[in-house]
């Protein structure tokens, strides 16, 4: 007997659709299960065989939970703002909205052909004004609570996309998306104060069931460290503050380094004898990416400030000050103290510039190399700290610094605030207005959604302004505060905005009065199981936890964490074991598989391919085995 999978699969897909078989019930008395997978960005290429792996796995869980009697919410939607659509639109002179509509239609048909049991009644699209109205609303709440602010800052600038990138979007010094070099540029940007939540984003990981590698990556990314801020003097009388996790090694400090962009360079210009050399060095540094400056250059360069000295607060000694590009003005205080006896980078630098090297923790041989295994041990050559253990010395020196007014105890984070502006068209307009008299003012909530206006050109201006800046009539408005003349913000939100809260909208997707009703949020929260890619760990996953915690703090959502459980799937590799990509010519199109073998076979194969967490190579011969089964 021949099994006509094509006719039979279509028959059931139609029946599931017509009968809304997988629609989650609005009966809040039933036991609930909320399964979530990352909604895709509907690109022009259509679905990739990697998408169905995650979707099918949680589909199996969702179907099992339904059979177990749970009221299951397994929704799907479209994370549709973003550059590829905009670039495609620019190139082909089609409105991004039309491009999005076509891509969504293709994706949806593909997902349905796989027999995924999504509740299509709750489909959402981040580019729908009825959706981004609430993204804008959340932004306004962040602004009103002091968590959104505008700042002139040195930002990562992609030379290819002509757009500001978040640190998370810069990978190995190049743009995560297009691979173009990333340089620094000073621009006025909207920022979100994610750092205010740094401690809770770490500590609350104890309350959720995330796989270990996700927790570890988030903790390392936030990078909390305990130490002290130490105030060094200078021969100019200015105080220079540095952060250190090792204040116990202060007696070993033999020089300081400041960022080439440090404000003191200009302030002291008259005193610095080699100012021309210092400025030339600064210009060269500005042309390098952050990654090049801090990671790539093995050989550390620098220029000594001739004529100005730092003063070590513990012993009053004068020490030289260098500018070096591995110190960033945007990180910490833009100045560091150097302990060449116990840090290999400082050691190499000291050798190169012939600076003294002092041993302050016993145990190594500093005539050969820095002694870096110094987390424990005994202090030497350290005045009143000599003879103490490292732990004792940390406490003693911090107390001394505080008493002398030369330092404070400080917790530091690697995490930076989130750059929340993009000079692009295809994103949520930022609902803010600038008035010369009243400053930045939020739009009244009654004026949301602030719709994206129509433009003739989607390209950013040469100065890197958003294409919205061309629209004089749209930009010109009145101040919501004083009624005077004012200008709209022309930057748009980054593509991470809409996905930072989308799981909440699924709970009540057609609500016109709130992001979702409190009853629906109470019933469905938190997401019981969220599966997605490891590449989102320090981006989407962290951002959405931050927004959720904020919404919890202002009483909008009932739980402090959005996701009870997070798992991650391995990538599907090409037949040759390499990452699938067009340039390698090893891409497998899921449509072809479904057409040749049927959706059930495709599902079985994707699940049979190996350990879910690990990467798995595609194999056409073993899919035939699944077909026979």
């Amino acid at each position, binding site marked *: 007997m021949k099994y006509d999978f094509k006719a039979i699969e279509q028959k059931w897909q139609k029946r599931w659709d017509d009968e809304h078989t997988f629609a989650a019930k609005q009966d809040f008395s039933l036991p609930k299960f909320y399964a979530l997978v990352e909604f895709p960005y509907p690109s022009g290429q259509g679905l990739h065989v990697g998408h169905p792996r995650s979707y099918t796995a949680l589909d199996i869980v969702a179907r*099992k939970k339904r059979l177990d009697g749970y009221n299951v919410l397994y929704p799907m939607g479209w994370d549709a703002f973003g550059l590829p659509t905009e670039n495609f639109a620019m190139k082909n002179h089609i409105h991004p909205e039309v491009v999005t509509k076509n891509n969504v239609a293709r994706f949806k048909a593909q997902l349905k052909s796989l*027999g995924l049991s999504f509740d299509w009644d709750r489909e959402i699209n981040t580019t729908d004004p009825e959706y981004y109205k609430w993204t804008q609303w959340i932004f306004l709440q962040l602004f009103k609570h002091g968590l959104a602010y505008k700042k002139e800052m040195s930002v990562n600038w992609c030379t290819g996309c002509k757009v500001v990138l978040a640190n998370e979007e810069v990978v190995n010094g190049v743009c995560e998306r297009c691979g173009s070099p990333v340089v620094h540029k000073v621009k006025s940007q909207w920022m979100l104060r994610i750092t205010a939540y740094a401690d809770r984003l770490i500590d609350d990981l104890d309350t959720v069931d995330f796989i270990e590698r996700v927790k570890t990556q988030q903790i390392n990314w936030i990078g909390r460290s305990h130490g002290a801020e130490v105030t060094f003097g200078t021969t100019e009388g200015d105080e220079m503050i540095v952060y250190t996790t090792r204040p116990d090694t202060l007696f070993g400090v033999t020089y300081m380094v400041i960022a080439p962009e440090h404000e003191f360079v200009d302030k002291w210009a008259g005193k610095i004898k080699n100012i021309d050399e210092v400025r030339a060095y600064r210009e060269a540094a500005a042309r390098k990416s952050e990654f090049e400056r801090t990671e790539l250059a093995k050989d550390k360069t620098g220029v000594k400030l001739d004529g100005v000295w730092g003063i070590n607060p513990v012993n009053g000694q004068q020490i030289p000050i260098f500018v070096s590009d591995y110190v960033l003005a945007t990180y910490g205080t833009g100045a560091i103290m150097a302990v060449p006896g116990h840090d290999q980078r400082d050691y190499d630098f000291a050798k190169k510039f012939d600076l003294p090297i002092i041993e302050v923790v016993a145990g190594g041989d500093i005539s050969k190399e820095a002694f870096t295994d110094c987390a424990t041990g005994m202090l030497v050559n350290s005045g009143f700290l000599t003879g103490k253990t490292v732990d004792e010395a940390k406490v003693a020196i911090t107390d001394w610094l505080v008493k002398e007014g030369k330092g404070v105890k400080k917790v530091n984070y690697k995490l930076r605030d989130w750059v929340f502006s993009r000079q692009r068209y295809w994103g949520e307009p930022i609902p803010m207005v600038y008035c010369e008299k009243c400053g930045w003012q939020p739009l009244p909530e009654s004026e949301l959604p602030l719709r994206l206006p129509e433009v003739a050109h989607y390209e950013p201006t040469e100065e890197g302004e958003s294409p919205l800046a061309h629209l004089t009539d749209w930009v010109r408005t009145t101040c919501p505060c004083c009624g005077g003349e004012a200008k709209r913000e022309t930057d748009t939100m980054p593509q991470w905005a809409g996905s930072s809260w989308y799981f909440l909208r699924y709970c009540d997707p057609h609500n016109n009065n709130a992001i979702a009703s409190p009853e629906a949020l109470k019933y469905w929260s938190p997401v019981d199981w969220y599966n997605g890619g490891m590449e989102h760990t320090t981006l989407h996953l962290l951002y959405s936890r931050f927004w959720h915690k904020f919404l919890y703090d202002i009483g909008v959502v009932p739980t402090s964490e959005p996701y009870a459980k997070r798992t991650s799937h391995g990538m599907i590799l090409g037949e040759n074991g390499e990452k699938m990509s067009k340039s390698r010519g090893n891409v497998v199109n899921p449509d072809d598989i479904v057409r040749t073998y049927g959706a059930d076979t495709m*599902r079985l194969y994707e699940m049979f391919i190996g350990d879910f967490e690990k990467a798995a190579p595609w194999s056409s011969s073993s899919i035939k085995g699944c077909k026979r089964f």
Partner: protein
Amino acid sequence: MLESSLHKAIKKVGEDIVQLKMNTAIATLMSLINEIDAAGGVTKDEFRIFLLLLNPFAPHITEELWEMTGFDGQIAHAAWPVYDEAKCHDAEVEIAVQVCGKVRGRVVIAADLDGASAIAAAKQAAGIPEQLAGKTIVKEIYVPGKLVNIVAK
């Protein structure tokens, strides 16, 4: 035999799904199919259970077979089968027989057999008496359901 395999499969597939061990769940279903083939057929109720276990993985074909067999409604609205813990245990198991740590033979025994009887059975397994001939037994170990190891000099 098939009844026990079905109960074991209900347990195993259900547990594997929520641990995302989809590959081992599918392997269980594949060996179940082979057993059904070998048995020459299934009762309607056994078939019903099999369809439910396969449904999350292969939803279309199971809906179709569910309808063809005349079960009520959509399988998507049915309930996951319940297993009987007692029936998840095999009546008999095949264990390995080791002499001085090396596998020298295999023997089928009752799953709930006590240690002394298991060791006695192991000593009689094909090929084992020859291995033990002329040696003094120093130690005998029974790992329930898995193996017997006889240390002899």
